[in-house]
């Protein structure tokens, strides 16, 4: 397996080297890696080398440590249940097939290395990367949802039930579990390669299993509620009921292992570890029986993955191909916008016209459907507030409108990333044109903002019609929201220009991790002024002027940065 280790390590090292070859990307990589290291490794290391005494419990706090530990175990069981379910969900199960690459087919599969060993290595090595990402996600949700319980627990003076090495139990059981799931899923995938209906049967079994657990837990929760007890206590009692405990051992094992410091060794930890080890061994053996099909399945998966990556890298192109294909077959009609087609702009506006024309022809129908749905939902919510809101209607409507517009804008921003990424494929075509880079980058993000405006304006008009007394507020919300879109879209454009290669692990990680911080950072000047204006009760008009001004200044700054990146863009960097 020496060549496979060589391949894996060199790819990782070269990916990092490439990241550090670009100073800006190097800083971002260091920040992201530093964040992960300090957050996760720091916590683990402190258990070994840090102060072993827990902080003292406040005198007025009367807490039952058992109940807190049980709550956290319940939360972890739920998170691992989601992980198991996700492993067999259509989208995740199909993404497991993405372990194989076209280069594997061309350069690895024709070589005399043992077929089964190559296949297993690729699944394990590439699966490990994905499972580590999932573990970070679980730890994140654990910290978010269990924050209160964890703080309470740290305030209690509980002696650790196991030594520092006990901390290794969770990663061990987690690895056994994810590898077991991976192998089971790949086994099913290979068998489903010949018999696609197999997945439906798997989902049926999974659905029945999950439904059964949900019904049983609901029963315990309701029973507790009827007795006037806490529903959470009822659910915990259900979780510890002998039958459910036995059934849920595979999920209790990682949950109990995560709490092993407070909970000590439990039967679930030992039995669960044995269970997942058994699954892994059995799935490994079952995979061996499919030996002759391994490369063919991997090859088909690699082809699918290549298509998916191409669509991911160039979603607009993929969508365009699909729409063109459907339109050719007469399945759909593309939306024609006559006034747009007659418009003959020049200079940089020609780019705007092209983007708008293509965007509306491709996504026009979707936009119209979205507009209808948003109008119906928005108008419905506003009507509901007006009818049933009573005396609080005026205040409630502001919350409902603000929240719905925020959700629409957020969805739009995240969705717009794909449109922004499309600029990469137009680079060769439009960079040689005699157009100022600052105008080009601004024009590239404008169609998205215009489409959002087209969705929000009718909603604003409905709001004004239903609540005319708040007309000023509705207009304020509309302009403020649109003004935030400019700096945020430009920020995302800069991020895309800095990380254009989505086949590179580091660049993909940077784009994913930094997307939300960038959104926040680019909107920060406006947000700060918005907060201050509300805090000091500044009149709405001045408030709007301040926020619009801040966003305009951020836009000017980010346009300069984006233009600079655009001019110096090198896809091979």
């Amino acid at each position, binding site marked *: 397996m020496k060549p496979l280790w060589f391949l894996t390590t060199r790819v990782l090292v070269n990916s990092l080297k490439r990241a550090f070859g670009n100073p800006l990307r190097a800083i971002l990589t260091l920040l992201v890696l530093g964040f992960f290291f300090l957050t996760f490794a720091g916590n683990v290391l402190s258990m070994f080398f840090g102060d072993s005494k827990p902080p003292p419990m406040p005198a007025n706090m009367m807490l039952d440590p058992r109940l807190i530990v049980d709550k956290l175990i319940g939360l972890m069981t739920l998170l691992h249940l989601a992980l198991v379910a996700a492993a067999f969900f259509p989208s995740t199960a199909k993404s497991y097939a993405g372990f194989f690459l076209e280069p594997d087919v*061309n350069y690895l*599969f024709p070589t005399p290395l043992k077929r089964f060993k190559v296949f297993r290595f690729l699944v394990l090595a590439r699966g490990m990367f994905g499972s580590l990402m999932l573990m970070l996600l679980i730890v994140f949700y654990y910290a978010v949802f269990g924050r209160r319980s964890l703080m309470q627990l740290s305030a209690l003076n509980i002696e650790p039930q196991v030594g520092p090495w006990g901390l290794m139990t969770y990663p061990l059981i987690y690895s056994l579990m994810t590898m077991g799931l991976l192998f089971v899923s790949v086994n099913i995938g290979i068998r489903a390669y010949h018999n696609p209906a197999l997945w439906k049967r798997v989902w049926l079994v999974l659905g029945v299993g999950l439904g059964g657990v949900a019904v049983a837990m609901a029963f315990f929760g309701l029973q507790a509620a009827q007795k006037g007890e806490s529903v959470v206590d009822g659910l915990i009692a259900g979780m510890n009921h002998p039958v459910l405990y036995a059934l849920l051992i595979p999920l209790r094992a990682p949950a109990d292992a995560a709490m092993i410091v407070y909970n000590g060794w439990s039967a679930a930890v030992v039995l669960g570890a044995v269970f997942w080890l058994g699954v892994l061994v059995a799935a490994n053996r079952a995979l061996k029986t499919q030996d*002759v099909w391994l490369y063919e399945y991997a090859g088909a998966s690699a082809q699918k993955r290549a298509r998916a990556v191409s669509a991911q890298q160039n979603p607009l192109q993929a969508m365009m191909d699909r729409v063109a294909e459907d339109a050719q077959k007469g399945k759909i009609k593309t939306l024609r916008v006559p006034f747009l087609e007659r418009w003959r702009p020049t200079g940089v506006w020609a780019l705007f016209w092209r983007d708008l024309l293509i965007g509306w022809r491709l996504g026009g129908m979707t936009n119209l459907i979205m507009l209808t749905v948003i109008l119906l939902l928005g108008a419905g919510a506003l009507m509901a507030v007006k009818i049933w809101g009573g005396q609080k209607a005026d205040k409630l409507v502001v919350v409902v409108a603000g929240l719905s517009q925020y959700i629409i804008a957020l969805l739009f921003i995240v969705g717009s990333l794909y449109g922004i990424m499309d600029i990469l494929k137009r680079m060769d075509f439009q960079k040689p044109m005699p157009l100022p880079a600052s105008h080009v980058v601004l024009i590239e993000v404008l169609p998205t903002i215009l489409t959002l405006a087209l969705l929000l304006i009718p909603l604003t008009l409905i709001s004004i019609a239903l609540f005319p007394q708040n007309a000023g507020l509705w207009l304020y919300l509309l302009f403020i929201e649109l003004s935030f879109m400019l700096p945020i879209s430009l920020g995302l454009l800069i991020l895309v220009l800095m990380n254009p*290669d989505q086949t590179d692990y580091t660049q993909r990680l940077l784009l994913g991790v930094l997307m939300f911080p960038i959104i926040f950072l680019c909107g920060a000047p406006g947000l700060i002024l918005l907060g201050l204006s509300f805090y000091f009760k500044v009149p709405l008009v001045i408030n709007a002027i301040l926020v619009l001004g801040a966003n305009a200044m951020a836009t000017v700054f980010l346009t300069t940065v984006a233009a600079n990146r655009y001019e110096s863009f090198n896809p091979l960097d």
Partner: protein
Amino acid sequence: MLEVKNLIKSFKGFRAVDDVSFRVEAGEIVGLLGPNGAGKTTTVKCICGILNPDSGIIHVGGYDIQSQDREAKQLMAFIPEMPNPYELLTVREHIQFVAMCYDTLPVFEEHIETLLNRYELKSKENALVATLSKGMKQKLAVACAFVHNAKLFLCDEPMMGIDPKGQHELKTELQLMRDEGAAVLVSTHQLDTAERLCDRVIIMQSGRIRAEGTLEELQAQSAMTGRTLEEVFLRMTEEAEREAPMVSNDSGTGQ
């Protein structure tokens, strides 16, 4: 060196290769020709052990590709249609990796400079593959086929995207291998290349072998003495289409 007997391969009910049999002897270059969707790539991938045939026998140097795949593969080298190399390896690492797979690092050390120079990869040896042009990637794919002492070369459109000098180098190299006793199977659309390079051609259409032989034999079969391979090929495939219009698979299985 290569024996394919009654090979059948289907995808979701579509028979991509239908009862194909042929041989490639040591010391000859055989061209595998055919229109899109003829089953050429599927046949080559079955021989490489990437696809599992429904039935039939494939022997490489006397080894069965199913039951003795490691021994058979040790004798083979494959040049893919689309190079698609590992983008995050350097050129040198890529060739080294393939050499490691064949357990021929000493051969690699001995020949690496020659290979890099022959395919004009020397100046790029430490560059990431991702930074290479399409033509250079194809040259890399070709270079990787020569890191071990293969006795059977399977080339799927090997000239695609390579500049004239690179094409010339490859043709010379394949002819040299043939002269040294290796067997070469070249799947291609470039009929002029096939005419000049191949000792014999096999014409496939709709998963079946339509004709097989030297250019002279094919000319005689189609009563087109003195005509080019292109003319003979077009006549034969058009005739076959007229005789038995079959369901075409323009996209090809690509498997």
